[in-house]
């Protein structure tokens, strides 16, 4: 995916944004197709109650405010994630005041069955990954989420978090070191 993104030239991306400002549907289709997955994944990994719904709100705000935007691809992607980050904070505050009464099961829960062994292994893998992920600090988790799930570059992540690139580098280095250490410890423990 990253290779696809980097294959686009700045000129084509800027022309897409300009077309989106004019209300061209093809431009919005391209933007949504490229960014909706990372944005929704970012919102989900950060604990949004309804990531898909919140992601839709993020893109609606992007569409409303795109006339104020002026910049290149890096700035545009960062700008979209800044909006997502702020909407996430609002969503958390909203749910803190009004907690969900019913914890509904996810819609995509596969109740029909399948390859049980594969599912169990996948579940264990996810559980182990989550266990290790939880050992990281919040900043480390945030950087890894934006870089891997949000599919942002180092510079884009720095813009979203309003930190220097060197600070992002340090955070991701520590994060990967902590993950590797946890894996090694787990292996020793096992």
């Amino acid at each position, binding site marked *: 995916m990253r290779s696809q993104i980097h294959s686009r030239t700045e000129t084509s991306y800027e022309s897409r944004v300009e077309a989106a400002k004019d209300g061209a549907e093809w431009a919005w289709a391209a933007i949504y197709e490229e960014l909706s997955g990372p944005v929704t994944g970012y919102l989900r990994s950060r604990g949004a109650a309804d990531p898909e719904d919140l992601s839709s709100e993020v893109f609606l705000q992007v569409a409303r405010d*795109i006339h104020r935007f002026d910049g290149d691809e890096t700035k545009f992607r960062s700008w979209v994630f800044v909006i997502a980050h702020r909407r996430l904070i609002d969503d958390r505050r909203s749910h803190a005041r009004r907690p969900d009464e019913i914890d509904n099961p996810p819609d995509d829960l596969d109740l029909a069955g399948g390859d049980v062994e594969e599912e169990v292994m996948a579940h264990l893998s996810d559980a182990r*990954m989550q266990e290790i992920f939880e050992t990281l600090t919040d900043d480390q988790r945030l950087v890894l989420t934006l870089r891997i799930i949000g599919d942002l570059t180092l510079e884009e992540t720095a813009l979203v978090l309003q930190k220097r690139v060197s600070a992002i580098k340090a955070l991701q280095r520590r994060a990967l070191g902590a993950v590797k250490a946890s894996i090694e410890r787990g292996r020793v423990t096992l």
Partner: protein
Amino acid sequence: MNPFLWHYMTRFSDREIELLLSGSREASDEHADLEWFLTALADQRPAPPHDVEHMATALASVARSSVPGGLRTRPRTAARRMVAVAASFVLLFTMSGIALAADGSAPGDLLYGIDQAFELIGIGDGGIDERIAEFDALINRGEDEAAYEFLEEVIESSREDESAEAEEHLDVVSDGRPGVAEDNVTEHQRFIEENKKDGVGADRREFGQGVADIVRIPDQDPPEQAAGNKPDTTPASNDNETGPPDGAGRPDDAGPPDDAGPPAEPRSRPNSQNQSPNGNQPTGASDSAGKADKSPRP
């Protein structure tokens, strides 16, 4: 810092980190376990959306409706709203001022028509009290004729209770002589109409004298009138006031003026000079205001 963690951290170069995070297979085998973790983390990313076209249509529509011109219209809209509110207040105050000014007007005034118009829509409608006040205003201005005509119209067009109130006020105005004033008005009007019809009004002096005779309300009725005899004129210049002839009964007792029948010859209408028993000549209606006799014409 934990020396154990520092040990692992120092094993990553910037390039290796970028390779790992970008999912490249070029990362060294030393970090294969990290690749497992990062792959599991990347799998948290949702599948590509199915509703791209539908969402793109909606987003494009939102973007089109949020053009910069739309942003500029907000202040314009707000400004228009403020101007509209200010204009409404100015209009309200102006209308209130006009209504207030018109409310105190009397028939014949410039604002009286406006007052009537406001009353039609329920603004400043004082009912019969206001009509009486207008009648008083005309009386105070010396426009007795207009006042009585006006009140007569009011009495005819009002409800029974309001008419009674107006008639009662008329009694009070007629200096405690109930029935005199309204009969006087009727007589007055009839005299004017008849003279108009017969062309007598050409002789202005005679005509004015006749009007003055009718309008004049006597201070004291002659004893003959109290006895039911045919009333006679009373000199307007009679200063020997002995109080209103309450005990003499209403002039109606002597019969309405119509009983005497219309004059056959309008030019023979009596003037005060011929009918005054003591020969006093009325000096005119203005001199005899409130003293006019209700004398049926012969």
